[in-house]
Structure formats: structure tokens, C-alpha cells
């Protein structure tokens, strides 16, 4: 097995270097999909798994392509353009086709309106430089309702962003979030909410999966993503189980065995999403949660990209972006 890894590894790397310079991303989409599919296949082979996308035609590869639901510009260096180029280079190595990016740098847990706008501008810069391979979600501080609505309009209604990212400024069960959620629903924009259940104690404004379930129950037409599914996923999955408009996103915690199996068992594969939380986390460690899971391959395809594409389908269509 390892011999196969070493043999296949180097030619793949050379091919990527020669044919796909990451600095300009001029490679055609068809070529890129074909290569990322092969990269994913080799990554899967190297881990002893049956490759999901091996030598499939590009149209099939597009349907099965890996999309990463959760990443940040922190964890790299340089300008937003340089940072997204660095992350795309690693994404190529891991067979990931698209990256969803939100929040700029440095991290700010309770940003001012000016800081929110500045960080969203950083993401817009990165997205514009990605050759269509990165999508943005708008970062909002729900303590600032009016400013958040204006920023939502600027970045999603009038800009290229596709969804909303909420972090730790305010626990999400608060009524202050309702106008933001209602506007997001109008714009067909999913809402990704950071959730954790820390045995060491949450931050004052840090949401739990229970908080998100409460918010989601008030807005049954809004699609929500429970980022990190609480970290303590055995509790987090249970918290959102009965609220069907909440999808579990598995990123940003250690690659503990069993999370995907439990999520698929309790929620169904249609409510589970892959994300990595790059650059703080490794693409490798987070992909392993799916590649290593004892679930059907059809479930893995949904988790690695199918569910994201379905959730973003309406807004992508509204913006005339083909997934």
C-alpha cells in the first residue's frame, strides 16, 4: 500500500506544478475538476480507502467534488490574495474543489461595524482572486442589527457572498437575531452559526447547539448550519436532532473517530456537512473524519459536497453561478 502512495504521490505533484500554477488559477474548470478528482482519489488510496472519484469523467467528478464549508483567512500570511492562493494550493493537494471563506484577520469576537466591514472586504478580495474556487459568507455582529442588515445587503444582495457567518458576539437564541435571519431567508442565504459546548466553559457570547435549535425553531424556513456541531458532538448532535432545518457541520475539532457515524445515524446523511476550519485546522485531519467513517459511500459524497451544493443551490442560481 505504501509503495503505491510513494509511486503515485510524486507524479501527481509534478503534474499539478507543471499544469496548474496556483498563482494565476487560469486552468480551465474542466481540467481542474479532473485533476482535483484524481488528487482526491490518490489521497483516498493513500489512506487505504477506496477512492470515490477515481478516473471518473469530469461531469461525474463535478457532482462528487469536495467542497469545504468552513475556512478563514487567518492561519496564513500576506494579503488576502496571497492567503487564498496558499490555501488553494493545499486544497489542490487534498482534492478539494471549492472553499467557503468567512472572517478576515485578525480574529475579532465582538467587532465594531467598521471592523466587520473591513474583514468582509478582505474576504471579498480573496474570493475575487480565487478564480471562482472560493465563495464568501458575510461575517456579522448580531449586536448591531441595522449595520448587520446593511452589510448583508452589501455583501450578499449586492455582492457575491452566499451566506451568513455568526460567531461569538452574542448567543444566537437572542431575539436580536430575528431580523437578520428574516433578511437572510429573503436572500436565500444559509446561516452558519458557530456552536460549542466546552467542558472548560464557553465565552459569554458563545452559542451552544441548544441555542441554535431554539433560533431555528423560530425560523423553520431558514437553513442553519451548526458549525462544529458543538465540539462535544455526542451532545451537540442530540441538541439539533429534532430541529430539521439545522445541519451538522463537523469541522474544527480533533479527528475523533465516530462523529460522522453518529451524525449520519441520528440526523441522516443529508444533514451532515464537511468543513475543515482551515487554516487553524488541517484539511487532512478534518477530511479524515469522513474518509475514515464507516458509512456508505453515497453518504460520504453528500457530506463532502452534495449537501453544500444543495443548500446553496437557490442562491447560486439567483447569482447565475453554476456549481
Amino acid at each position: 500500500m505504501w509503495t503505491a502512495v510513494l509511486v503515485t504521490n510524486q507524479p501527481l505533484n509534478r503534474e499539478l506544478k507543471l499544469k496548474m500554477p496556483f498563482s494565476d488559477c487560469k486552468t480551465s474548470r474542466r481540467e481542474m475538476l479532473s485533476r482535483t478528482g484524481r488528487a482526491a482519489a490518490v489521497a483516498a488510496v493513500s489512506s487505504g480507502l477506496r477512492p470515490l472519484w477515481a478516473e471518473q469523467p469530469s461531469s461525474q467528478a463535478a457532482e462528487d467534488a469536495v467542497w469545504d464549508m468552513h475556512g478563514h483567512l487567518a492561519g496564513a500570511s500576506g494579503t488576502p490574495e496571497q492567503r487564498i492562493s496558499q490555501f488553494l494550493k493545499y486544497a489542490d493537494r487534498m482534492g478539494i474543489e471549492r472553499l467557503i471563506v468567512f472572517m478576515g484577520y485578525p480574529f475579532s469576537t465582538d467587532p465594531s461595524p467598521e471592523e466587520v466591514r473591513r474583514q468582509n472586504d478582505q474576504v471579498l478580495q480573496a474570493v475575487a482572486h480565487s478564480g471562482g474556487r472560493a465563495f464568501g459568507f458575510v461575517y456579522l455582529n448580531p449586536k448591531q442589527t441595522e449595520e448587520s442588515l446593511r452589510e448583508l445587503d452589501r455583501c450578499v444582495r449586492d455582492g457575491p457572498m452566499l451566506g451568513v457567518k455568526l460567531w461569538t458576539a452574542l448567543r444566537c437564541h437572542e431575539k436580536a437575531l430575528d431580523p437578520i435571519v428574516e433578511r437572510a431567508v429573503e436572500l436565500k442565504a444559509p446561516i452558519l452559526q458557530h456552536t460549542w459546548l466546552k467542558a472548560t466553559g464557553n465565552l459569554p457570547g458563545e452559542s451552544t447547539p441548544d441555542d441554535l435549535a431554539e433560533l431555528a425553531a423560530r425560523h423553520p424556513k431558514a437553513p442553519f448550519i451548526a458549525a462544529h456541531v458543538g465540539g462535544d458532538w455526542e451532545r451537540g448532535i442530540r441538541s439539533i436532532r429534532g430541529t430539521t432545518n439545522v445541519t451538522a457541520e463537523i469541522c474544527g475539532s480533533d479527528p475523533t473517530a465516530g462523529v460522522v457515524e453518529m451524525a449520519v445515524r441520528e440526523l441522516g446523511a443529508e444533514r451532515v456537512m464537511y468543513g475543515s476550519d482551515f487554516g487553524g485546522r488541517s484539511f487532512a485531519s478534518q477530511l479524515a473524519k469522513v474518509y475514515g467513517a464507516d458509512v456508505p459511500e453515497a453518504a460520504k459524497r453528500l457530506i463532502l459536497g452534495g449537501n453544500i451544493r444543495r443548500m446553496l443551490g437557490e442562491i447560486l442560481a439567483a447569482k447565475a453561478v453554476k456549481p
Partner: protein
Amino acid sequence: MIVDVNVNLSRWPFRRLPCDEMPKLLEKLAASGVTQAWVGSFDGLFHKDIGGVNARLADECSRQRPGLLIPFGSVNPKLPDWQEDVRRVHEDYHMPGIRLHPNYHGYRLDDPVFGELCASAERRGLIVQLVLRMEDPRTQHPLMPVPDVAPEPLADLVAARPNLRLVLLNATRTLSGDVLDRLMAAGNVYCEIAMLEGVGGISNLLSIVPLDRVLFGSHFPFFHLEAAVLKLRESELTPQQTEAVSRKNAERLTTIPNPSFGSHSG
């Protein structure tokens, strides 16, 4: 071929793991290209009958292909007559080393008993695997919080024991900065990649830790084995770097003759 220096047998105390039974564990090791695994026992965390833990570990390893599972016995120096456990690990079971869990056994690294234990291991030529963390403290059972091992006292201890071979497991989320620099400069100290995070993690680690001190470790079956394997791909490593991390460094670490390597260990 991969030598995985961070694998455990038996049951994680708080959850069943998908590969915590021997057939599935062996199947996953083989499928991932792991040709040798250095294994401890989850039982070593809480069991007080450490003699029984190590006897089972030696027996289970001896039932597999020679050289596949290399047992590292648990030693809890807060138990009476822990020296007998060290003797059995070395003389009866011919294990190449011991695996320590100071945070689960209730001592700090500046406790004199830890120094005594390291001295004993050094005299016997035993590798010491020191586990700094088993689980993210944020996700632990609320009634059982176990903080990370504080590594600060290690550098001085290692410097005083030039023949000690120390392998730090699950250390890369805990060790950083000056503490890591001092530790690597102090002596024969190694780390592995199981808890390494960040994009391009191995490349980043190699910018601060010498190549010959980095080992392949997975923390399997608690973690997915695939996580460590895929890290080898994520970083752009030369073939020489890949070989060193995945196999050669661990093999070199064990060049001191020990009957456990390449032969039955029971």
C-alpha cells in the same frame, strides 16, 4: 511502510470506538500501510492493576505477526511498588519501552518520582513515551476533567539524562515556543504528528523541529488513522522527508538491541 508510534489497544473509557476491536484495528492498520504499531493500552489510564494491563497487552501483541504490534507497558509511579512493573516490562515481557500518563495518574513532571522513573528507564534502555494529552480538555466528560501535562520541567530533566530516549505523544497542541526549542536542544526528544493541526502542518513542524525528531503517530483508534496518513500528503514533503517521518526515524530510534523488535514480544 509506516511505523505508527501512537496506537492504543482495549477500550476508551468514555465511548466505544469504531476500531477498538482487534480484527478491525488490524484491518485498518494494514489498509493504511502501517507495518508496525507501537501500542499502549487505554486500560493504563485508570486501571490500578497495571500488572494485569501489561500482561494482557503483551499477550495480545504476541498473538499477532511478529513485529506488527510492539507493546509499550503502562507504569503508574503513584502506585505502590511501581518498580516491579518496570522490571516486568523489561525483563519478563521484553518490551522496548513504557508509556506514561502523568495527568491521569496524578503527578507533575517536577515530582521527584517522575525523575526516578526516567532514571530507571534510562538504566534499562527503555524508551519513554510521555503522553501530554489524550483528549481535548474542552470535550472531556464534565465529571472527569484531565488537564494537559505541563511540559516545562522536561528540558532540565532530559539534559541531565543523556541516554534517555523520550517520545512525546499528542504533544503538538501543547508544546510550542521556547519550551519546545529548549526541549529539542536538551537531548533525545522526539514528537509525532497525531495532534498536529494547521494547513501544511508537517512542513510547519519541520521548520522548528529537526527532521530526525519527527515520527508518524496517529492516536488511533481514538482518532481516525487517516488523519495522520493524509497529513503526509497535505504538506509538500520530499521523498526523503516522507520516509524519515513515516518510518526511518522510528526505526533508528530502536536501533539499540531489543528482542521485541522483529520478534515475538510475549
